Structure formats: structure tokens, C-alpha cells
């Protein structure tokens, strides 16, 4: 039977993404911000890390371990952001939706900013660096997570009437709450502008950060991701039917309010965890589902799973590419994703203008 548009097989795309991810991972372990570690040494470091072999000599083992933490955090964060983006786009029936829209990103930043200020102490001595370097990352991540969930809950509450979420109201409320939270963050930055250390800590958060991650960050993002993956089979068919409108999905037998709550909740959780371990990283959630859809079509039954591979390939790939080009001058992930992702997204929009209108 001839088909008007042929999409690639999801299995084939998954296979290609796995190969890419393995290659990018090995490259990322070899190339870092400091010295180069050969592939064999990297693998020995990995074995040493899990306690099977002898650790590498000197500082090499520490460097290899830091790169492993960074890699696993990046993979988790990329997957979480992409999955979250796909879930939001499915519920909102809009390819321009992303976790940022309902305030997840802004809320996380506000939470983190407040915690950074609290930790800094009143005297101006920078508590985070001088007195509690080991403890601060947990507190900041936790504050970011709470900030993300509180903002999302607030936006959702405003948009809910008699147990039903209205999608247009949700989008508008998100814009308003984002503006308020953005103002609050700016106010905090204004307060901190005289303090160089404080400003640097706030900015680091805004740029995103995948360096210096620990087992805590890896565990946080992977546990959250594992929990979210379990809902994929429960919402994939349903989100496909959402494409023609909620009323239509309802008449086909979909419990639309359950699907909305579960998808938005899981998407917000994923994004909140990602932001809380790696700061703000734009565009992964927006672009990954978009690119995958052009290959495998709009079905969420493949899209949601493929996002778990596509997100990491995009995030780790962009980071590795800029390390090869820029070397030690490499930029933070949030910045590189915006600089690479933004223009790329514009290009996609230009190319697909007509089909976007049909969506």
C-alpha cells in the first residue's frame, strides 16, 4: 500500500541514536576541560570506579570519575528534558510548548537564587564557597526543585476550574507567572550585583552546569527519569488522540483529565529534576521532539521513547562538538544549546512552515 509520506522506522532511528550516543560518550570521556585520557585508560578508570579493576594512578582516576559523573548527569538531563518537552507538546498540541512555558525553569531558577542568597550570609562573605562548599549543591538543587514544583502547581491551580485544566488558560497563566518570577529573579540579581562571588554563583545557575557533578546529581536525575518512564505506555496512545482536540479524545474513550494530569505532572517532575541538577539548559526539550518527529512522524508511541536517546545525543553531542572546536574555552551547556539550538530551530521553522500551520 503506497503512503503519502514515508516515515523512518522507529527501530532504525533508535539504533542510529544508540550508536551515536555510545560514540559521543566515549569521546566525552576522552576529551574534557583538562588533560586527554586515552580510550583504554578511560575504560580502566570506569572499571576502577565500579570497583572491578585497579584505579588509574594520580589525579587521572579523579578526572576520569568526574567525567563519568558529568556524562551520566548529561545523559539523564538530556533524556529528562527531551521527554518533558515531548509530553508538554503532546498535551498542549503545540510544537512550541516546553517545560519553560508553565514556569518550571523560572521557578527552579528563583528557588536556586533564593537559596544562593540565603547561603551567602549577611556579611557578604560567600558562604557557598568559603564555609559549606560540600553542602551547598544539595541545598541549591533541593531549592530549585521545590521552586519548580511550586511554580508549576501555582500555574496549574490558576488554570484549573472544577477539576479540569484549560490548556489556553494554562498557557496564559504561564506567561504571567513567568513574568512575575522573572521579575523576582531580576530583583535578587540587582541585590547581588555588588558582590562578585554571589553574582558568579547566580550566573552559573543561569548558564547551566554539567561540570563538577557528583553521584548525588546522577542518582537524582536517574531515579526521577526511571519513575517517569513508567508512565509512557499509559499516555502514548492517548496523546496521539489528543492531537485532534480534547473533546474528540474524550469521545474515543480517553480519560482526558487523567492523561493531562499524569503527563503534565511527569513532565514537570522531569524538567524540575533536570534543572535542579544542571541549571537552566534551553532548547533540548523544545528541539529534540521536533527533530525526531520529522523522521518518525507524530506518533507518541515512538516519540516518547526516542526522546530518551535523542535528548542525550543532542546535549552531549553539542558539548563534545564545542570542546573539539573551542578546547579549553568551551562554553556552559545552557549557552551552547541556545547558540546552536536557537538558529537550528529557526531553520527548522523556515523549512516546515506549511506543515506547522496544519498542526
Amino acid at each position, binding site marked *: 500500500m503506497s503512503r503519502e509520506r514515508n516515515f523512518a522506522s522507529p527501530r532504525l532511528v533508535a539504533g542510529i541514536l544508540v550508536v551515536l550516543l555510545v560514540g559521543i560518550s566515549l569521546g566525552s570521556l576522552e576529551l574534557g576541560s583538562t588533560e586527554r585520557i586515552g580510550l583504554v585508560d578511560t575504560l580502566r578508570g570506569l572499571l576502577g570506579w565500579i570497583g572491578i579493576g585497579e584505579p588509574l594512578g594520580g589525579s587521572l582516576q579523579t578526572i576520569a570519575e568526574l567525567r563519568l559523573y558529568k556524562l551520566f548527569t548529561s545523559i539523564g538531563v538530556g533524556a529528562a528534558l527531551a521527554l518533558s518537552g515531548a509530553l508538554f507538546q503532546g498535551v498542549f498540541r503545540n510544537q512550541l510548548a516546553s517545560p519553560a512555558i508553565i514556569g518550571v525553569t523560572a521557578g527552579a531558577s528563583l528557588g536556586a537564587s533564593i537559596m544562593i542568597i540565603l547561603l551567602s550570609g549577611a556579611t557578604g562573605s560567600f558562604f557557598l564557597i568559603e564555609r559549606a562548599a560540600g553542602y551547598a549543591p544539595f541545598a541549591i538543587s533541593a531549592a530549585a526543585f521545590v521552586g519548580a514544583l511550586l511554580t508549576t502547581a501555582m500555574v496549574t491551580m490558576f488554570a484549573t476550574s472544577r477539576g479540569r485544566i484549560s490548556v489556553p488558560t494554562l498557557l496564559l497563566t504561564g506567561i504571567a507567572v513567568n513574568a512575575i518570577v522573572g521579575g523576582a529573579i531580576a530583583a535578587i540579581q540587582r541585590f547581588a550585583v555588588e558582590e562578585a562571588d554571589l553574582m558568579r554563583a547566580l550566573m552559573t545557575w543561569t548558564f547551566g552546569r554539567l561540570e563538577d557533578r557528583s553521584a548525588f546529581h546522577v542518582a537524582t536525575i536517574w531515579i526521577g527519569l526511571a519513575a517517569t518512564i513508567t508512565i509512557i505506555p499509559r499516555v502514548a496512545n492517548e496523546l496521539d488522540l489528543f492531537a*485532534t482536540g480534547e*473533546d474528540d479524545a474524550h469521545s474515543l474513550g480517553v480519560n482526558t483529565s487523567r492523561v493531562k494530569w499524569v503527563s503534565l505532572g511527569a513532565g514537570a517532575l522531569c524538567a524540575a529534576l533536570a534543572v535542579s541538577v544542571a541549571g537552566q539548559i534551553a532548547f533540548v526539550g523544545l528541539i529534540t521532539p521536533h527533530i525526531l518527529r520529522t523522521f518518525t512522524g507524530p506518533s507518541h508511541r515512538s516519540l516518547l521513547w526516542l526522546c530518551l536517546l535523542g535528548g542525550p545525543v543532542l546535549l552531549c553531542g553539542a558539548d563534545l562538538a564545542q570542546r573539539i572546536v573551542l578546547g579549553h574555552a568551551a562554553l556552559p551547556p545552557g549557552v551552547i544549546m541556545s547558540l546552536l539550538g536557537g538558529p537550528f530551530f529557526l531553520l527548522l521553522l523556515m523549512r516546515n512552515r506549511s506543515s506547522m500551520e496544519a498542526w
Partner: protein
Amino acid sequence: MELHFNDLVFEYKGNTAAESLRALRGVSGQVRAGELVAVIGPNGAGKSTLIRMLAGLDAPASGGVTLNGMPIANLSHKERARQVAVVPQSLVTLPEVHVDDFVLGGRYAFLSPWRGPSAADRQAVRNALQACDCEGLEGRLLTRLSGGQRQRVLIARALAQGSPLLLVDEPTNSLDPGHQLAIFELLAELAKSGRAILVVTHELNLASQFATSLVLLDRGRVACRGDADKVLSPAALEPIYGKGLTFGRMEFRGCEPSADRPFVLPWRSGDE
């Protein structure tokens, strides 16, 4: 299969009592297997609200809807979808999917989240497409179909749902006369094969030819109900649509034996 709705009241709530709108003020009726009931009435009469209520999309403020004696509100989402299929007037957005995948959406109530569609589901899709004269459209994109083809595909998806009751909302909107006739012939055929169909329409003459009974709604109430001769009469329609109508009768050959049916034209004939 019997759908009963009893004394349905529904109000669109506004901020004040004056802004609230009583869309239905006590509407009752029924549809049985083999019947094609046409609901007609002016814009704002409550026709679409009635469909939403019967489809379980909105709950009535008072009154109830029962399916074979069972309140529809007691059914789970999937159970309801296996009993009642809705053919919407239009879709909010058209996804870029192939026709067969779209029609497969009608099988949702039969699918398990853990496995894909079965051979029976695929067969149901083929049968539904065939019944709606949509063979050959399987591999086409929904976005590239003509209005008439899209309407047929929407009906096919409702048939794939396997429900004995179809609620059809203004199926001939923006279709040319040939396609309008074809859609109503299809609905009449489906009713004859044992389905219960309630169709909301502005096409009085198509309702006259094909409906087994008509319900005339006005401002949330049933103004008149019965066969075409009774409902499509000056006495019933002029108080609602005004005096600009011309009434007549003509032989209808779509039934055995052929019979005279009334027709109504929006035509000022000047003898008011």
C-alpha cells in the same frame, strides 16, 4: 440499543445570573436501533449542547441520559466509547497522520496500553473504511483530503469504534450538494443496518428524505417532534425561522415504495 434522555437542563455559567445562558431547559427524547433521528433548529437552539450531553462531555444540571436503562455517567470512559461514537463537526487541529492510522484511533477503547493493535482491530478499520466508501484512502494524509473525503473518514472512525449508537454533529457543513446527499445516504444505510443514529443538521430537506423522525429545538426546548410532515410544516417552522420560507412536496425515490415528502426552501415567494 436504546438511548433515553430525560428532562435535560444545562446552563453555561457566567459571572452573573444575567450572563449565564440556559442552553437546555428540559429536553427529553430517545433513539432506538434502526432509527435516524434528525435534530434541527436555529443557531443557538441547544443542538450542539444536546450532543455534548449525550456524549458525556458535559454533565446536565438536572435530568439524565441512560443507555439501555443504565445511566451514562456510570460507565467508564472506555465502556462509554464502546457504546457511543461521536462524529464531530470538525477537528480542532488536523494531525499529519495517514487515514488508516487515524481511523485506528477509533479502536482506542479496545487497545491495551501494553500492546499494539491486533488483527481484529486492523480488520475493523478496513471494514469501516469500506462501509464509508473510503477504500484507497488508507495511505493518504488526513491533511490532504477534500472536505467530503474527510467527513467520510470521520464517520469511518466512528464505525471502527464499533458502537451501536452514533451521534453526528452537522456532518454536511461546507460540503457541496452531491456530497451532502451522499453523507445522508450513508447515515440512512447505517441506520438500516441496525445502528441508532442521532444527527444534528441544518439541512431540513435531507432530514425530510432520510430521517425516521425529527426533533425541532428552539431556545433550549423541544418545539415540535414527529415525522417530516408534522415538523417541516409552516405551523411548526414559521414561528421559529420567520416567514421567509417556501414549503412544498415532492416525490422521494430513496425509499420503497417511493413517497411524497415535504421540502422547505429559504425563498421569499412574496405571498406573505
